[in-house]
C-alpha cells in the first residue's frame, strides 16, 4: 500500500506528546500565492495574508492547536480559562493573562483585546472589517479593568463561541490603534510566538523566535522563512529539493503521490476534510431555472457518491456532504442525505425522475451555460464532472470559464444561468456557515437570487437556538428547504486537504481549514 496512507494513519494515531520537541532550527515553508494585499488580518480574507502574519499575533481564543481537526474544541490563547456564559448565555466574561508583552515591549492588557475586537465588530469610520457581519449577536464589548473583557450579546446563540475563535482576530495594541487605525495594514507588531524580521515584497516574510512568548517552552523554532510560490510544480520541486519543508494550504493528490514516490520516508502526509464545499447554483431569475422542477431535475442527475470515488483520485475533493461540514456533529448522516435530491443512492432511479421532471416542465433537450472560475483545483474538475452528469439526463451544459474578477462580477450582476461556487469557511461554525445560503435580500453574496420566507424563518429560529440537539433538527429542516423543497442550491463534494511535508517537520497537525492552526508555535524540527 502507499506509504503515505501508513504515514497519515500513524500520525493521526500518535498521541500529542509522543515525542519530545527539540528546540531550534528555522522552518522554511511556502505560501501558494503571489503575496497578499495589506498585512491587516482584520481587513483581509486571503489565506496568503494569514499564512504570512498569523505567527506574529495572539488571539483571544482559538481552535485547540493539539486537536485542530475537532469542530468544537476551543481553548484560550490570551485568556486564562474558557468562560461559562452567564445571564442565559448573554454574557461571556474573559480573564486575560497577565505578563504578556507586545513585541515592542509594551504590556498587553484587556484594553488591547477589547480595542481589537471592537475594531472587528464595530469598525470605526474609514476602517474595513471583512468579518463584521459574522457578529450580529454582539451588543457590547467592555473592558472594565486591565484583566477582564466582557462580551454582551443581543441574543444567546451557539454560533458565538466558534465565531470568537476566528484566526484572523489578531490582538493589536490599543495605543497603536489610537494613533493610527491603518498602522497594521503596513506594519506588523503583535504578541505572538514570532517577531517580525523582514518582508521582501511579494517574495518572502521572515520571523524570529519571541523569547517572551507566554506559552511555556514555545515556540520551538528559532525562526521561519515563508516564501510565496504560486505554481504548484515549483512547490513540489522545492519540497523535493528541500528548499522548503511544506506548504500548509494543501496539494493535489497527484502532487502527493509524486512526492511520496520520490521521497519515500522523507515525506509525511496529513489529510483532512476541508471546511470548503463546492456549491452548484442555478440563477432563479433566469428561465427555465425559475421552475423548481428544472432545478430539482439537475440536482437529481448528479451521482455524488459515485463521483466522490472517482474525483478524489485527481482532485482535492472527497467527502459527500450537505450544507454542514461533514465532520461536525450537526452535519447530516448518510441516511439523512440520501433522502435529498442529488444524494439518492439509486442514481438510475433518480435520473429517471429527473427526466420526468424536465419533460413535465417542458425543458427537455435543455442547452445552458455554466459559469466557472479558471482555477483547476477543484473548480474546473468538478465543473467538468457536473457537465457530464447533466448530459446523462439530456441537458447540454457548456462551461464559461473566466478569471476570478469576471466570475464574481457576473454572479453579482446576475449575468449567468448556472454557476460553480465554493463555500469556504474557517472555524467550523455550522449555523453561521449555512447563512451563506440565505436569499440574496438577506445575504448579498448569495447568487441564486431566490426568495424563501420559510427558509429565513427556519434560520432565525436556528440562530437563536442554544440546545445543540434542537439546533441539529432545525439544520436538517433548513437543509431540506434549501436542497429539496426550494431546490435553491446544491452542495457538491467537499474539499479535501492534503498536506505533504518533509518528515522532519513535527508538532503541526492538520486542521479542518487552511486558515486554522497557523501560528507555528507548536512546530519543531527533528533533524
Amino acid at each position, binding site marked *: 500500500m502507499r506509504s503515505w496512507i501508513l504515514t497519515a494513519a500513524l500520525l493521526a494515531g500518535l498521541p500529542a506528546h509522543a515525542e519530545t520537541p527539540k528546540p531550534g532550527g528555522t522552518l522554511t515553508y511556502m505560501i501558494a500565492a503571489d503575496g497578499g494585499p495589506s498585512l491587516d488580518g482584520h481587513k483581509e480574507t486571503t*489565506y496568503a495574508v494569514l499564512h504570512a502574519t498569523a505567527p506574529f499575533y495572539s488571539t483571544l481564543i482559538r481552535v485547540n492547536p493539539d486537536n485542530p481537526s475537532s469542530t468544537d474544541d476551543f481553548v484560550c490563547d490570551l485568556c486564562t480559562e474558557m468562560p461559562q456564559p452567564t445571564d442565559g448565555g448573554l454574557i461571556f466574561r474573559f480573564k486575560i493573562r497577565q505578563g504578556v508583552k507586545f513585541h515592542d515591549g509594551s504590556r498587553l492588557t484587556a484594553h488591547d483585546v477589547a480595542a481589537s475586537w471592537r475594531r472587528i465588530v464595530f*469598525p470605526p469610520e474609514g476602517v474595513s472589517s471583512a468579518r*463584521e457581519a459574522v457578529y450580529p449577536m454582539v451588543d457590547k464589548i467592555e473592558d472594565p479593568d486591565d484583566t477582564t473583557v466582557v462580551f454582551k450579546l443581543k441574543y444567546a446563540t451557539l454560533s458565538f463561541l466558534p465565531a470568537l475563535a476566528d484566526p484572523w482576530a489578531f490582538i493589536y495594541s490599543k495605543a497603536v490603534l489610537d494613533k493610527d487605525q491603518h498602522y497594521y495594514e503596513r506594519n506588523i507588531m503583535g504578541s505572538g510566538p514570532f517577531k517580525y524580521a523582514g518582508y521582501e*515584497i511579494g517574495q518572502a516574510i521572515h520571523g524570529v523566535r519571541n523569547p517572551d512568548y507566554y506559552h511555556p517552552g514555545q515556540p520551538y523554532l528559532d525562526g521561519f522563512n515563508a516564501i510565496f510560490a504560486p505554481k504548484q510544480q515549483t512547490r513540489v520541486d522545492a519540497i523535493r529539493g528541500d528548499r522548503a519543508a511544506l506548504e500548509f494550504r494543501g496539494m493535489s493528490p497527484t502532487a502527493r503521490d509524486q512526492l511520496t514516490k520520490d521521497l519515500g520516508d522523507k515525506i509525511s502526509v496529513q489529510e483532512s476534510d476541508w471546511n470548503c464545499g463546492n456549491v452548484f447554483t442555478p440563477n432563479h431569475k433566469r428561465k427555465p431555472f425559475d421552475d423548481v422542477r428544472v432545478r430539482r431535475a439537475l440536482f437529481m442527475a448528479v451521482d455524488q457518491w459515485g463521483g466522490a470515488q472517482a474525483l478524489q483520485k485527481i482532485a482535492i475533493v472527497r467527502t459527500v456532504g450537505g450544507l454542514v461540514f461533514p465532520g461536525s456533529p450537526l452535519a447530516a448522516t448518510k441516511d439523512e442525505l440520501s433522502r435529498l435530491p442529488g444524494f439518492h443512492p439509486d442514481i438510475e432511479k433518480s435520473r429517471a425522475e429527473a427526466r420526468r421532471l424536465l419533460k413535465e416542465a417542458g425543458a427537455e433537450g435543455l442547452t445552458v451555460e455554466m459559469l466557472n472560475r479558471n482555477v483547476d483545483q477543484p473548480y474546473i474538475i468538478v465543473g467538468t464532472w457536473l457537465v457530464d452528469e447533466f448530459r446523462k439526463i439530456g441537458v447540454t451544459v457548456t462551461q464559461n470559464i473566466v478569471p476570478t*474578477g469576471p466570475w*464574481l462580477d457576473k454572479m*453579482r450582476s446576475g449575468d449567468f444561468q448556472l454557476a460553480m461556487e465554493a463555500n469556504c469557511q474557517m472555524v467550523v461554525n455550522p449555523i453561521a456557515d449555512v447563512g451563506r445560503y440565505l436569499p440574496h435580500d438577506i445575504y448579498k453574496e448569495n447568487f441564486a437570487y431566490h426568495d424563501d420566507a420559510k427558509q429565513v424563518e427556519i434560520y432565525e429560529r436556528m440562530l437563536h437556538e442554544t440546545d445543540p440537539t434542537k439546533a441539529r433538527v432545525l439544520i436538517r429542516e433548513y437543509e431540506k428547504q434549501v436542497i429539496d423543497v426550494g431546490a435553491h442550491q446544491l452542495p457538491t463534494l467537499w474539499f479535501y486537504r492534503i498536506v505533504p511535508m518533509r518528515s522532519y517537520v513535527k508538532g503541526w497537525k492538520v486542521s479542518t481549514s487552511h486558515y486554522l492552526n497557523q501560528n507555528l508555535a507548536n512546530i519543531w524540527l527533528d533533524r
Partner: protein
Amino acid sequence: MYQYIAKRVLLTIPTLLGAAALVFLLMRLIPGDICLVRLGGGGGSFDPKALIACHAEIGVDKPTIVQFLDFMWGIVRFDFGTSMWSGKPVATEILARLPISLEIAILGTAVAIAIAIPLGTISALRQNTWLDVAVRIFAIGGIATPSFWLGIMSVLLVLDVSAAITGTPWMPPIDYVPIWKDPIRNLSMAILPAITVGYRYAAVSMRMTRSAMLEVMREDYVRTARAKGLVAKLIVNRHALKNALLPVVTLLGIEFAFLIGGLVVTEQVFNLNGVGRLFVQAVQNQDYTLTQALVMLTVAIFVFTNLLVDLLYGWLDPRIHFA
C-alpha cells in the same frame, strides 16, 4: 547627436501619456472589481460594508472622469499612485521586482550573444556543411521549444541528476538574494532561467546572424578585401561581422526590452519575483494603478532600448549620422 537624443526623449512623453490613457480606459472595460477579488476570491463570506469601505479607500467609487484626471495629474507630477491591491506605492512594488527581471534579462542576453553570434557566423561561413545543419537544428529547437517546458524540464533534470549523483535531490533556491549580498546563491538561482531564456533568444538571433552574414559575405567590398589578399579572419571580424550585426542588434534590443516585463512564464516556473509576474498579478487582481504604471514602464523600456539601438547603429556603421 545630443540634439537628436533630446528630440527622441521628448517624443517619448506623448507616447507614454497616450499609452497611459489607453490602458486606463481598457482596464475599466474589463468586467470585475478589485475589491470583490480581494474579499470574495477565497470563496468565503465577507461583509457588504467592507466592500463599500474598500471602494472608498482605493477611490474607485469616484466618477471615472475624476479618476482619470487624478491619474493624469499624478503622472505629470511623477506620482504613479499606490497599488490598489497592496496599498504600497507602485514605485515600491516595481522597484522590488525590477532587479531580478533586469538581472535575468542581462544574463539571458549575455547567454544569447555568447551562443548566437559565434554559431550564426560559423553556420554562415560553413554554409550547407554538417556544421551548418547542426547549428540550424539547434536554432530551430530553441524556437520550437516552449520556455515553460524547457524551464520545468531543466529543474527536473537538475533534481534527477543531483539525486542520481549524490543521493539527495538538489535544486536552485526559490527565493531571490541580491548579487551583492550572496553572489553564489544569487547566481545559482539565476543561471537556469538565464539559460532557458537565453537559448530561445539565441535561437532567433543565431538565424538572423547567419542570414545577415551570408548576405554580407556576398558583398562587393568583401570580395575586394579577399582580392587584396586579406586573411579570412580579418575579413570576417573587421569587415563582415560588424556590418552583419545591424539587424542582429535591432533584434537583441527588441528582445531585451521584452525580457524586462515579458518573462511571465519563466518567472513563474523558477519562482522569480519579477516584473512579468507582477504584471500578470496586477491584471488578475484588477489593480488599475499598478497595471497602468507597469504598461508605462514597458513602453518606456521599449522606447529607450530602441533609442540605444539607434545610437549603436552609428557606432557599427559610421555612414549613419544623427541629425
